[in-house]
């Protein structure tokens, strides 16, 4: 058995940092009470304070006030609250039209589809070959009836970073609210709501070595938002339910632990992987933008081979990565992101996503490059596709 798995799927989930767990522990065993009002008992008041401190720390990291940040169960819930909440609050008043990009992650994309079924008009905005939203098309798509624009900060698969400042500017100009899913950029790519005209921001702890099941939503003061989860008056009456105080404390600790030095280290690993693979493995294509890209993400198509075969071979060698291949997905559909940037099934089929985290090293990069080069070469030997075999392809 292998001693250690080289885990390169940090966009999907990350290993919890022990320091996060240490910060959370007292809120399971000591200060486990419900966060009470200021007139409650002392254990509850302490819990309330811990929640408030966690909220304030995360809000501050976004340039927001404490009252503008609510805790949720993760990015899926945050984006649901944002997209459906605005639709509920403004659908009748402003108009039943929303705009999303074609390559949004499923929480936004499927919230938009759900609204479409309820009679909303949804524009699924095209992106260019590197995944960037066309700003002119965005402007053209918007009307007086557009209630919300939801465009991600960076893509979950290909890592392309959008120009939020200009997108937000267009939304202001047109009088629509702007939500962004920052799950894959939060703490790694600067986002200051004091500078960026954005009304709602989805964030999550699971991508930054925090606990799973904890996320948050920045809600700019005064943003109309329908209540989605009914119950008590928690989270400024926007999200009912007993507060997950250990989770909130862990999330804040996880935010605190991310440093610019670490982010630079991730960037260096990413760059080495991209440069080496493109130079050393023939017939490869980088998916996404080369420089407008989150520091922890590389996504490369290995032509003529299928991604699930690659991931299984790598798994047997002790590397965990993911693929946009249909064979890997729960819906048996190829990556909508690769299709969105103009790729075909073949490009999605052979696409591999590598995402780095705190516990990766440069040795991991060299290890994965060597292994993937071997695996791809082996698989190409049994593939009926390929450059050196082209003459035989049409012989059906």
């Amino acid at each position, binding site marked *: *058995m*292998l001693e250690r798995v080289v885990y390169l799927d940090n966009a999907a989930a990350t290993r919890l940092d022990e320091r996060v767990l240490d910060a959370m522990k007292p809120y399971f065993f000591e200060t486990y009470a419900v966060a009470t009002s200021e007139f409650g008992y002392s254990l509850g008041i302490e819990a309330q304070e811990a929640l408030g401190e966690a909220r304030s720390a995360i809000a501050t990291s976004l340039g927001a006030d404490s009252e503008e940040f609510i805790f949720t169960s993760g990015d899926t819930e945050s984006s649901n609250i944002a997209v459906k909440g605005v639709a509920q609050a403004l659908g009748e008043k402003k108009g039943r039209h929303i705009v999303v990009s074609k390559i949004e992650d499923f929480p936004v994309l499927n919230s938009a*589809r759900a609204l479409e*079924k309820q009679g909303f008009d949804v524009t699924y905005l095209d992106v260019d070959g590197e995944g960037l939203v066309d700003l002119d098309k965005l402007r053209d798509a918007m009307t007086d009836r557009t209630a919300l624009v939801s465009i991600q900060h960076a893509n979950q698969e290909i890592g392309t970073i959008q120009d939020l400042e200009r997108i937000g500017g267009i939304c202001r100009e047109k009088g629509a609210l702007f939500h962004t899913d920052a799950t894959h950029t939060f703490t790694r790519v600067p986002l200051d709501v004091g500078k960026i005209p954005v009304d709602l921001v989805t964030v999550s702890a699971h991508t930054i070595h925090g606990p799973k099941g904890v996320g948050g939503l920045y809600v700019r003061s005064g943003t109309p938002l329908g209540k989605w989860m009914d119950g008590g008056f928690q989270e400024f009456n926007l999200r009912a339910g007993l507060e997950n105080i250990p989770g909130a404390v862990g999330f804040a600790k996880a935010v605190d632990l991310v440093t610019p030095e670490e982010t630079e280290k991730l960037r260096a690993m990413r760059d080495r992987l991209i440069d080496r693979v493109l130079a050393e493995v023939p017939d490869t294509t980088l998916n996404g933008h080369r420089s407008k890209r989150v520091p922890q993400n590389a996504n490369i198509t290995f032509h*003529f*081979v*299928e*991604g*699930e*075969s690659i991931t*299984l*071979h790598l*798994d*047997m060698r002790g590397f965990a990565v993911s693929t946009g*291949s*249909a*064979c*890997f997905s*729960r*819906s*048996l*559909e*190829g990556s909508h992101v690769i299709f969105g940037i103009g790729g*075909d*099934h*073949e490009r999605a*089929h052979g696409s591999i996503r590598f995402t780095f985290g705190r516990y990766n090293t440069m040795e991991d990069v060299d290890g994965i490059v060597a292994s993937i080069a071997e695996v791809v070469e082996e698989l190409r*030997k*049994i*593939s*009926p*596709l390929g450059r050196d075999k082209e003459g*035989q392809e049409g*012989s*059906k």
Partner: protein
Amino acid sequence: MKFPYSETVLEHFRHPRNVGQIEEPDGKAIEGSPACGDMVSVYINVDKETNTISDIKFESYGCASNIATGSIITELAKGKTLDEAKKITWKQAADALGGLPKLKAHCSVLAIEGLRSAIQNYEERHGLVKERKPTTVDVVRRRLGKVMNPLSGLSVVRTNLVTAIEVKDGNVRVIIDLPSDHQFAPVVKEEIMEKIEPLWDVKSVEVVFTD
């Protein structure tokens, strides 16, 4: 470590048997295409005296179950008569592999089809097939028997996912008992199109979901 496949699947995936091409084969076929996902090519040589498969090779552009199924069918088919080899089913291949995940039926069935098509190709080239038959509801139903229902690993016909088939002047309509936003709706549609569109007298194919 915990892998999603049986030991036998992994063994064939790691060390696929009879990989490659046969120079000037007696029969060959390519099933699937890079556009739709997985692809398998199968090459056979036939011993004309005994009418058995004397040599067989395959290539795969596909996932683990596709590769493993390609490998196992070459072992199952080698030495068999053409009629025996034609009757090898996905179930037999899956059993020989110690089981395959239901969800992967559609990836692995391609290899079975590749084998049948290679035999058919041999028979066509050697004047062993009759006239082309016009496409009827029955022909469509039989072909849809090869489209797998990812929910069960059985065919869409057997699992009553296909509720109606209409054929009129070369225009085929297939009614599927799934909502159009179902998780598997796009893949089922694509596979149906892929199976029916190539029929020689089919002009159009429409897949209708029951919302």
